[in-house]
């Protein structure tokens, strides 16, 4: 048809699905590798460990790294390398599961509050503001104390404490996106609200949520450490990186390896998740070909 506007040009055709965009992003690839590395360590901990992570030895208390104890020993002579492997399970779980809980509650609430506005928004926002008024760690401690000390309850408590951030973030994004013409266009063709939210609003508010989620994984790992320290998280003698770090801080000068290795592990995992999150955000956006 001659109507085709000859003067107008279109960039050469390129079609990349999200996955290939993710792999092409070097930062994201590093993130994936780092996260996978720790997941493998956690999964294969029983085979990779050189010692029993619970066995203490009074003859080898606070030994520096050596051939026998790869990363040294802690204050009651347990092998830090083996504890780090087993601790990866608790810490990764604490990070991922609690953020998943926060996302599962926070994002739908934010979508509904932002999209429908009015009374729904008022009710949700007031509750969230009340929760935000309490420091999230205090909230998590209160919740964990109420629920009883266990790793699962700690993750639940951290997840709930992290929820308000996601509600607020999602709601704010929705408020900006819902006035876009394409949302009105979706209403104009008669699309039901639920489909407008899922297909038009959610994909367009996802980027900052993904980034926030990866940052929150880091905070959640640290929060689990604090709860463990108070006896509300991972129960001793089971290791988690946070609880290892907490005991290590008393021996900072005498036995720095006790804090360096769990601290370094947290640092690496957090960095990995952040890079993965950045990559995910870019990969989810078809504009970044």
């Amino acid at each position, binding site marked *: 048809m001659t109507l085709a506007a000859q*003067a107008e040009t279109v960039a050469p055709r390129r079609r990349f699905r999200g996955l290939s965009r993710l792999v092409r992003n070097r930062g994201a690839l590093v993130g994936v590798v780092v996260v996978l590395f720790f997941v493998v360590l956690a999964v294969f901990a029983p085979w990779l460990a050189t010692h029993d992570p619970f066995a203490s030895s009074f003859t080898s208390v606070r030994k520096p790294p050596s051939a026998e104890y790869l990363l040294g020993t802690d204050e009651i002579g347990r092998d830090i390398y083996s504890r780090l492997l087993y601790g990866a399970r608790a810490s990764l779980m604490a990070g991922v599961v609690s953020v998943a809980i926060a996302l599962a509650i926070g994002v739908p609430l934010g979508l509904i509050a932002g999209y429908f506005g009015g009374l729904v928004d008022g009710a949700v926002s007031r509750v969230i503001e009340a929760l935000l008024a309490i420091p999230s760690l205090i909230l998590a401690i209160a919740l964990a104390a109420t629920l009883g000390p266990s790793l699962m309850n700690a993750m639940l408590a951290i997840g709930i404490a992290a929820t308000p951030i996601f509600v607020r973030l999602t709601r704010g994004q929705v408020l900006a996106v819902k006035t876009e*013409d394409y949302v009105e*266009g979706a209403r*104009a*063709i*008669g*699309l039901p609200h639920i489909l407008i939210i899922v*297909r038009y609003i959610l994909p367009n508010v996802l980027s900052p949520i993904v980034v926030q989620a990866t940052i929150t994984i880091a905070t959640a790992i640290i929060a689990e450490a604090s709860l463990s320290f108070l006896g509300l998280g991972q129960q001793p003698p089971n290791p988690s990186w946070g609880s290892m770090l907490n005991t290590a801080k008393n021996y900072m000068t005498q036995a720095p390896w006790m804090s360096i290795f769990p601290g370094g592990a947290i640092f690496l995992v957090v960095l990995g998740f952040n890079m993965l999150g950045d990559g995910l955000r870019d990969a989810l956006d*078809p504009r970044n070909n």
Partner: protein
Amino acid sequence: MSQDAILEARNVVKRFGKPANFMRASSLVHAVSNVSLSVRRGETLAIVGESGCGKSTLGRVLLRLLEPTSGQVFYEGTEITALGQREMRRLRRELQIIFQDPFASLNPRMSVRQILAEPIRLHRVATGRAVDERVDDLMRTVGLRSDWADRYAHEFSGGQRQRIGIARALAGGPKLIVGDEPVSALDVSIQAQVVNLLGELKQDFGLTLLIVAHDLAVIRHMSDRVAVMYLGEVVELASADNVYEAPLHPYTAALLQAIPVSNPSARGQRQLLQGDVPSPTAPPSGCRFHTRCPHARPRCTEDHPQLETAGDGRQVACHFWREIQSAGVSVPARGEQRGALDKRLALYRARQAQRLETGI
């Protein structure tokens, strides 16, 4: 309700904001005030006015994308303002909208195929394989290559996106399309293409068009009738020719005077409107135009003029339109002053002729 009306508004009022209470002053914006008009089947009705006059709001209320504060809207004799959500959604297939900004009107996360397939699947215009065929058809109908359908909106130019927006409006098989400034975001040569495309589609699919615009050249070229709005009210409604050749309302006359003049020596002779549009939060008493009207008299400040019939199917809301018209002051001089308008019109016609020659 007249027989050939496809869409009719009765006393439609739309206000935004909240009324005054003891805590704060009123933030009510009177976007549309008591507008009644009917759109005839198969015509192109243009709604014109300065920005902020409520023309876009009216367009959205007519499609019930906004709920009117009061008043009724009838489509094919059914009061759509009284329909439940479910019935309204079903009816949306027949009532469509084209947006002003082609960069904001397409979901950036969806391919063109997904965008166009949405209304087709939703209203079961086609199912399964036939959906893809219908999408390809739509692409060709609006003058795009069907193998571009798997691209995303950001890969297209403004004019092409506007064609996609038009294709989306056509996808459900509509009877009436509201164009909310459908070409004002495009540059002039692309405007001509899109304007002509709309004209052709109207012919081919027997559409009724309601064009909201501020560009008088576009309107002259496209529309059968023109409704002129000022501060939320319709001040004149007449055939396009009548409006352009012999405007009755002084505001219409002033709008025509404001068409840019290409000849510098002719510029001094024009009487342009002074001042800004008064705030729609506190519209002036009496005739809302009296603060800027060159013919305003004491009565205009108190007495609100109703839309009255002025013969020839014309309607005008002015106490003194007869006197103003007989004095001959409102009719813009033809010739030099219309240079820019005529040039644009010539461009549109040339495009149309060019296409007719090459054959469609």
